[in-house]
């Protein structure tokens, strides 16, 4: 069956005839090819294909060895974990595990598994498969497989492997106590354990396929057949093909246990430039794309496209390097906080719908505190405080990145300009230092040679440790302070055995941090997706847990 012409294809036909006239002559009268095509009637409502543009190619299709959003985007269609998220939130919810029970000491978790689930290779998903996966992660080979860019999330979450330089992890064992019951034991409590399992890195993968197509230990696991041709999970799609440098084609999994995909195919393409993604959607080359530039939203709406916002799960902040005087003076830091008008920063440089931040985590995180100290915009007070601190003619180096757009920082140059004028208004002279992203990261996080700076973080799962622990868990050159009490409090909070205990502890830490004021949380910008008007059923998720089985494309 042939593909129907797309909207864009129909529009272009006349010119194509002229432009490619010579070829047309050659092609005329020749028989049609017999290859298959993506169009056609499937069992879903819409059938056809859904073409989505991300910003880069996936690095690997084995999600355990991935930490980039594009690999996870594809992995979420092919794989599922024991734990998912409630739609539209970051809260953990049952997925391949129907329920779980944790022991009082927080060390043992008993998972009751969903019945009747099979991997797409036809093998059963059961407790043995669960334990195979946990043991596989723990026994990650030494060398490149254990490096931070491959098994990043396992290293961060379980903190160690069976062998290698770091064996001080918290995983102890997994036991299949029944066909559909698995018991996972940790050596230390970790209240964020369940929430962390919602990460695609901890997806359940087919033991049969992994063994059949495995890579010898010591080799780069991303190069193997499994990660390129045979990733096998329980999700609503299966890999059709990965045409390197071009696209990933996913086919509907007709044996999926849940709501089957409505489109026959989902195709993921990489378009690096945000403007090019916008143009590709407007001209009909793709049906949707991620990471919409804030400046493009009105243009897309004018063209009749649909904009969908994710609830913010990130934070953008203005950091202070306390290794630089007088930023070690709390009065100076507070004065700068009073000089910053967050509302203006949001309206002038961040997408519509963004809320100013009061602390170093977004509102969706379970440990968000309503009682943190806030610093109202008051330029007069800021001037007074600077004078009291003997810093009336303060000069500050202000580092910011150029030519980069992050979900939490869509237009750093614009944000810098607003902040510079606000600081100037209270008598602070700003010495701007702009760098390209890689150099910027090197300067701000790898050296002490920076002053105030813009940075942020997008969270992975609903756990305050994923924000506060990441920022302030240890002494770093970015912040330039040594606060053993804070480091200790964060270490202790991480090891608490229940979520309730943890929430109380992190709320207190968040309040203490805002007293200490290592930086100014500016805002949690709203990330946007854009779709053609005929796309329906896409559910945005704050943690990008977006599975496309509900998507329809009416052509």
């Amino acid at each position, binding site marked *: 069956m*042939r*593909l129907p012409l*797309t909207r*864009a294809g129909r*529009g*272009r036909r006349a*010119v*194509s005839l002229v*432009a*490619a006239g010579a*070829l047309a002559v*050659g*092609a005329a009268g*020749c*028989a049609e*090819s017999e*290859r298959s*095509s*993506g*169009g056609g009637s499937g069992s879903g409502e819409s059938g056809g294909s859904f073409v989505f543009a991300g910003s880069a190619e996936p*690095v*690997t299709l084995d999600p355990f060895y991935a930490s980039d959003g594009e690999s996870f985007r594809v992995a979420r269609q092919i794989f599922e974990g024991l734990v998912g998220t409630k739609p539209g939130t970051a809260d953990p919810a049952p997925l391949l595990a129907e329920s779980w029970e944790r022991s009082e000491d927080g060390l043992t978790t008993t998972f009751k598994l969903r019945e009747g689930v099979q991997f797409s290779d036809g093998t059963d998903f059961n407790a043995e498969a669960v334990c195979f996966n946990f043991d596989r992660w723990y026994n990650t080979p030494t*060398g*490149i497989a254990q*490096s*931070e*860019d491959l098994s*990043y999330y396992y290293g961060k979450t379980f903190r160690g492997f069976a062998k290698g330089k770091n064996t001080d992890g918290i995983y102890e064992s997994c036991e299949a106590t029944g066909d559909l019951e698995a018991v996972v034991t940790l050596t230390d409590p970790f209240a964020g354990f369940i929430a962390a399992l919602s990460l695609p890195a901890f997806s359940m993968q087919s033991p049969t396929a992994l063994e059949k197509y495995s890579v010898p230990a010591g080799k*780069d696991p*991303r*190069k193997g057949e499994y990660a390129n041709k045979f990733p096998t999970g329980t999700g609503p799609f299966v890999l059709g093909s990965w*045409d*390197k*440098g*071009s696209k990933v084609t996913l086919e509907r999994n007709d044996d999926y246990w849940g709501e089957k995909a409505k489109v026959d195919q989902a*195709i993921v*393409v*990489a*378009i*690096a*430039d945000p403007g*090019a993604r916008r*143009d*590709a959607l*407007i*001209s*009909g*080359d*793709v049906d949707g794309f991620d990471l919409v530039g804030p400046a493009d939203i009105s243009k897309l709406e004018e063209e009749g496209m649909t904009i969908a916002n994710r609830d913010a799960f990130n934070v953008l902040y203005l950091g202070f390097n306390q290794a630089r005087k007088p930023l070690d003076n709390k009065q100076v830091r507070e004065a700068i906080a009073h000089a910053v008008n967050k509302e203006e920063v949001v309206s002038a440089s961040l997408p519509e719908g963004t809320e100013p931040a009061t602390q170093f985590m977004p509102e969706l995180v379970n440990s968000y505190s309503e009682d943190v100290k806030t610093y109202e915009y008051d330029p007069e007070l800021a001037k007074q405080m600077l004078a009291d601190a003997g810093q009336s003619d303060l000069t500050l180096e202000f580092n910011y990145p150029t030519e980069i757009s992050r979900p939490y920082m869509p237009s750093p140059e614009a944000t810098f300009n607003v902040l510079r004028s606000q600081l100037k208004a209270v008598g602070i002279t700003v010495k701007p230092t702009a760098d*390209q*992203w*890689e*150099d910027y*990261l*090197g300067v701000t*996080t*790898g050296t002490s040679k920076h002053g105030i700076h813009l*940075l942020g*973080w997008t969270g992975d799962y609903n756990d305050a440790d994923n924000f506060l622990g*990441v920022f302030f868990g240890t002494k770093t050159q970015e912040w330039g302070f040594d606060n053993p009490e804070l480091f200790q409090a964060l270490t202790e909070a991480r090891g608490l055995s229940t979520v309730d205990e943890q929430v109380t502890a992190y709320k207190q830490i968040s309040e203490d941090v805002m007293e200490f004021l290592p930086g100014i949380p500016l805002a949690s910008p709203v990330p946007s997706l854009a779709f053609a008007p005929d796309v329906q059923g896409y559910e945005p998720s704050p943690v990008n847990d977006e599975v496309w089985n509900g998507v329809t494309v009416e052509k």
Partner: protein
Amino acid sequence: MLRFALRRLALLVPVLFGLSILLFVWIRALPGDPARSLLGERATPAGIKQIRELYGFDKPLLEQYWAYLGQLVRLDFGSSIRDGRPVTETFFEQFPATVELALFAILFAVVLGIPLGYAAARRRGEAVDGAVITGSLLGVVVPVFFLAILLKLVFAIRLDWFPTSSRQDPRIDATHITNFYVLDGLLTREFDASWDALVHLVLPAVALGTIPLAIIVRITRASVSEVLSEDYVRTADAKGLHPAVVRRRHVLRNAMLPVLTTIGLQVGLLLSGAVLTETVFSFNGIGSYLFDAISQRDYPVLQGYILFIALIYSLVNLAVDLGYGLFDPRVRVS
């Protein structure tokens, strides 16, 4: 001629060796750190140290180069730091895209450039000449990325005549054998796939081919003008040869030598212009991959790709030198 070709090929070895040293030092002199670029915002010192050790970036520069040279001798160009894929594999996977684009760009430049230049020379001083000269001047000065964006804005977005990005409509399930998409479609009789690839090539090829077009027009005009005033052309006309024979045998053939040299030199320009064009049109060739490698400080990809490009550039120029003999029997390479 064979000895000449072999000597030139042998000369390539020290050239590439020297280039490999220059590249090695130059790339490492760039600010930024591949390990930090790989790990992003929350890179820990331990993580960065681990990556540096893994890829040998912690070793003295000389030791690193020695190891790299050892790899090169075995024709192993290393693997990308970002995705672990061998440099040779990705290069030869993407190279057909760039070659296809460059071929169509040069085809566009030659097919339009030589007749326009010839017409301008024949009607020197007339309106046609003025228009061609002005047009070619514009073509030379307009930056490739500007033209690419302009073409995309007008012909892909406003008029919707051509696609905005990529090499082929992702909805088409085409079979790829050689990775030259137009050719693949013909070989597999998937003519709609071939057609679609051709339509996707139009705007990038025009954007990339405009500067070579303008240069070819100017060189052809100058060269043809010069040949037209030669005695042997006047003699040929005077002895009553058919004008078409004079044009083909005496004018064009003699005027083509500088044009051929220009086309050869354009290859380097096309490869560097392809980086920008491919980026604007999300055309997945070596240009866009190289662009990403620069921003991510992917040392093995940068080194390998630039060496490959230098090698190809040299080989094309050798081919051009050898081609002289075909156009002018008086030129004997030795």
